[in-house]
């Protein structure tokens, strides 16, 4: 796993400034360490532990999905690249992998997980994209040069105010 902290501007297309970049092997066992690394980097710019929990969860869901779906047929531990940039109160996380594209080249929408009367019929999976949609501010996806490039933006990262607080 490679990780480095960038203090300088990446100046890609807007005011987003580099926070960190890393890559990991595309297998389940590498995800935990990657999350620890991401959280350590993010904690330098985000003091709100609930927000850090949210971002960690979204990164976990995204990486698990890439490993279990996009890279499922691959035997070579194809790498996943993560880069994180910041623009004021927003952070943007870009995930890049060389796996198969999303069905219809579109990421799944927010699943409606309603009240479940019959415990027996409760699904045992499929909650991942629901969580990503709930917690992220913005999600975009492009397929470039046989790579998936998924960008997830979070707001309220550097402010102290947390989600539980009602706008009054």
């Amino acid at each position: 796993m490679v990780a480095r902290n960038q203090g300088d501007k990446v100046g890609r297309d807007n005011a987003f400034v580099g926070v960190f970049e890393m890559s990991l092997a595309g297998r389940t066992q590498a995800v935990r360490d990657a999350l620890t690394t991401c959280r350590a980097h993010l904690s330098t710019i985000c003091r709100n532990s609930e927000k850090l929990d949210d971002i960690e969860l979204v990164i976990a869901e995204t990486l698990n999905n890439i490993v279990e779906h996009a890279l499922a047929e691959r035997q070579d531990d194809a790498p996943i690249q993560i880069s994180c940039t910041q623009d004021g109160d927003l952070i943007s996380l870009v995930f890049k992998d060389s796996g198969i594209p999303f069905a219809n080249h579109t990421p799944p929408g927010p699943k409606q997980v309603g009240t479940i009367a019959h415990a027996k019929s409760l699904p045992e999976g499929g909650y991942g994209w629901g969580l990503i949609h709930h917690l992220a501010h913005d999600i975009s996806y492009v397929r470039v040069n046989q790579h998936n490039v998924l960008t997830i933006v979070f707001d309220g990262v550097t402010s102290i105010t947390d989600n539980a607080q009602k706008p009054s």
Partner: protein
Amino acid sequence: MRLSAETEELLQVVTVLDDRIDAAVALEFKENVRQITETAPATVILDLSAVVFIDSSGLGAIVATMKHLAPQRTLVLAGLTAPVDRVFRLTRMDSVFSLYPTLSHALEDLS
């Protein structure tokens, strides 16, 4: 995935000793809980007080456990830390499971 269990006449407490229930351990968790609850009484309390991270795979494993125990036995959850409690609420699992803030509150209510 380390678990410990204590069984009384009418209920069993299964304590998760690891601090993460994620994709890397979800399968193992499911199997270990299945084994440890094999002869469990009517109520199984899963003590999650050591757990600070759960992802959708971990959630799925808990749902699978609940379904496996049903209909003879009920699974209730106790000791949810704030980040774990949050995931249960976001996925509306708080309407599916009985959630107790501490193990002793669960024991008090169920004994």
